[in-house]
């Protein structure tokens, strides 16, 4: 991963620069027009967030049952990224809703559950920071429980009456709006995933160095 880090950073930067071109070239959606373009940003952000939730949950389970410090570091990094990508989703969503629904926020099942997931992971970060000794286990349990909440969030849109666009928007995108829209969407999604991987690696490396520094410091004192 260390060798790949620089080329991947360059690639991700290039993709993020080229993505607006693809999004601009994608056809307009029939009813919503320009507003729909935020979809290329909003959905990939949530996809990255859900990936982060699962990485955090699985890494937490590993650190809890195996006690590996590396898994704990990955979980901490993924927890922060969950909040980051979740915030992007929570900011872009209302921007779209203002134009499409006429209100910034709607107390709809899906929106509420997304906000909830964000809150769970903010609580996760709070425990990590202020929980005191032994808080890493507590945080791990929080992450596992947060991950278990995801099915309730994901299924919510398809069972309950909701005004949020269904998750089937993505697979049927090509039929409705042509291959260029589909390409732009997956390009954006891939860019976000790469960004997620990069940030995760960076954060884990930072923590590794911090741990190494602490170790050296203690050694020096002795």
């Amino acid at each position: 991963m260390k060798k790949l880090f620089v080329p991947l950073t360059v690639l991700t930067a290039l993709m993020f620069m080229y993505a607006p071109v693809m999004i601009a070239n994608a056809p307009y959606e029939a009813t919503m027009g320009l507003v729909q373009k935020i979809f290329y940003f909003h959905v990939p952000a949530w996809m990255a967030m859900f990936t982060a939730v699962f990485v955090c949950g699985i890494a937490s389970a590993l650190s809890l049952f195996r006690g590996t410090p590396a898994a704990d570091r990955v979980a901490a990094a993924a927890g922060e990224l969950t909040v980051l990508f979740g915030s992007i989703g929570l900011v872009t969503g209302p921007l779209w809703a203002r134009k499409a629904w006429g209100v910034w926020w709607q107390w709809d099942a899906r929106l509420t559950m997304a906000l909830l997931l964000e809150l769970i992971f903010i609580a996760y970060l709070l425990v990590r920071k202020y929980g005191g000794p032994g808080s890493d286990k507590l945080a791990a349990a929080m992450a596992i429980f947060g991950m278990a909440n995801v099915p309730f969030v994901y299924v919510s849109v398809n069972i309950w009456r909701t005004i949020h666009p269904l998750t089937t928007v993505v697979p049927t995108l090509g039929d409705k709006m042509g291959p260029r829209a589909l390409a732009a969407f997956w390009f954006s999604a891939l860019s976000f995933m790469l960004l997620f991987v990069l940030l995760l690696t960076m954060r884990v490396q930072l923590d590794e160095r911090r741990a190494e520094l602490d170790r050296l410091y203690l050694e020096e004192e002795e």
Partner: protein
Amino acid sequence: MFLRVALLVLRKDFAIEVRSREILYTTLFFALSCVLIFAFAFVKEGKPLEDAAAGILWIAIAFAGTLALGRTFERERYGETLRALLLAPAPRPAIYVGKLLGIVLLLVVAEALLVPLIALLFQAALFTYPLLLIGLLLTGTVGFCAVGTLFAAMLVRARTRDVMLPILLYPITVPVIIAGVRGTSALLQPAPDEAVATMWIALLVCFDVVFVTLALWTFEPLMTE
């Protein structure tokens, strides 16, 4: 063995509670104060707002539940008995189940008082579908306490436990509160909707199964120092 240990833990908690009745009385009084405070917020010109009763009922349960959870484990910490409990040659998940049963029982007693009170004070027809209401209350309470017992047990050693318990517990258990409130208010409509209430009970059962399993699964590693 498993069930016997769980029942023993429950009996121990029950015996202590019967002697002092501290948690029961404080929780009940706290729940009453909650109802009173919400009454000031949601009663307008002598008439409660629509759906207020369902919301007040569930918020009172959640708040009183948090208090009871905190107190139960505070007692273990104060008597320094949690370590002894964990050292006992018994399966750890059984200890969790015993504690969970104790808190669920306590909250059921609190609910038995809250429901008639709210029905009386807010003119809510809570008794038209007693079975559905009992189903909602029971599944909801189990879900709330399943998460709460685990977190309260873990927080015993943390310095910031008083503030951390609600911070951790509420976001995770909001699905329970949503399901409880929506299900109860479906029963309180002028034309009660049984199908909606049943759907929410089904969701609560799923929630209970998932979170009780997770708690049983994680209790052992979490309580190991």
